[in-house]
């Protein structure tokens, strides 16, 4: 993986690999943001495309001085796109216009996320099998049945603290398993 220090420079030089790297890194975050902020949409593809289009336009206009500004800049754009969605009724026209102007991508954002999620689900499932049964029960009660910590504590006859600690430890174990395969999951990239 190339260093993020040179990402802006590489983007300015229209390096395709740098664009893909950036999209992979922020695609999931933007989709999660839109899904939780804008409900009931069948697809968020256009919105994500608008975010990246705006971002690459900003890069071209030298609005982003260094790599540290990338994340806040993208977040700012995502927020603006969301407001546009709510306040402007001619959403599809605007997106189309911006996309044509700034960014042309064959990247299927939602499909990419779906594949990424699928791979991650498999790793989580495998990691889950290595956990003690009590940890699996805690995660099942908490995430699948959406019980609160207090409820899970009552079911298992343990304290809330015990449940919270075991839950966090179990999640950490799963995360470590995912990080072992970080080449597969760009989303989990982190600098050492």
């Amino acid at each position, binding site marked *: 993986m190339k260093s993020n220090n040179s990402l802006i420079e590489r983007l300015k030089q229209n390096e395709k690999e740098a664009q893909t790297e950036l999209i992979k890194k922020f695609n999931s975050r933007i989709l999660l943001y839109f899904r939780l902020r804008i409900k009931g949409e069948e697809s968020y593809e256009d919105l994500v495309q608008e975010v990246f289009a705006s971002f690459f336009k900003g890069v071209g206009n030298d609005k982003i001085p260094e790599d540290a500004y990338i994340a806040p800049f993208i977040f700012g754009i995502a927020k603006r796109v969301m407001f546009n969605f709510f306040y402007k009724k001619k959403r599809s026209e605007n997106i189309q216009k911006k996309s044509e102007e700034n960014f042309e991508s064959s990247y299927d954002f939602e499909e990419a996320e779906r594949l990424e999620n699928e791979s991650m689900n498999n790793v989580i499932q495998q990691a889950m099998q290595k956990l003690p*049964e009590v940890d699996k029960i805690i995660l099942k009660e908490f995430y699948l049945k959406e019980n609160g910590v207090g409820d899970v504590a009552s079911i298992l006859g343990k304290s809330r603290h015990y449940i919270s600690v075991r839950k966090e430890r179990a999640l950490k174990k799963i995360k470590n398993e995912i990080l072992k395969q970080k080449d597969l999951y760009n989303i989990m990239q982190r600098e050492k």
Partner: protein
Amino acid sequence: MTCREFANLMDSYLKEEISPKKRELFEVHYFECDNCFADLKLRERLYSKEVPIVLKGKKPFLVWDLKPLLVLSSFLFVVILSLVVINNYREAEFLDGISNVEPPAYMQSETRGALQDETFRNAMSQYNNKQYIEALKLLNAVDPSSVNPQVLFFKGICSLQTNDPKSAIKRFDVIIKNMNPSYYDEAIFYKGIALLRLNKRKQALEQFNNLASMFSPYSERAKVLIGKINSW
């Protein structure tokens, strides 16, 4: 927002229970922090319910698992308790039935420790007429200090007939303790009867066994009662 603050809000964010003020700070943080987004993404995957959590092998002990066991044991407890209560009731009824013996009649010709007292005669007249409360009152007047074995014995019988077996036992015990031959055998027999009325089966059996081993006019009656008690 710090990573620690972020960690505490992840579940609230995904459940959309986070306050609007914190929400934006939270979102800014996960756009910037790869490590925190990794944690958030993991939780998001779990909340998506696309990852089945299969439990296998030995199930850990859950308090919840005790519920059917508790219900069953409570049910069994109630059943056993009911059986014990019913059995005790039936046994009490049975013992009460056995103890239902006629009180000894007072004969004017009785000479054992007899008192030739007008009040005593009146008392025994009431006794023979089955007026036990009146008889007891008069007997108390005749011998307030309870030393005469004849008076003591009939007081005991009166107590027994007026559903006061405890007082009867106390009176019979005085006779038994003093080993007064006049009413010794009778006192043991009717003490046994009084104990049956109190459902004290073992203690009653002791009295009757004692009597059965003696050369006494009450031995045969005691044996009959032992047989009846043991038939339960």
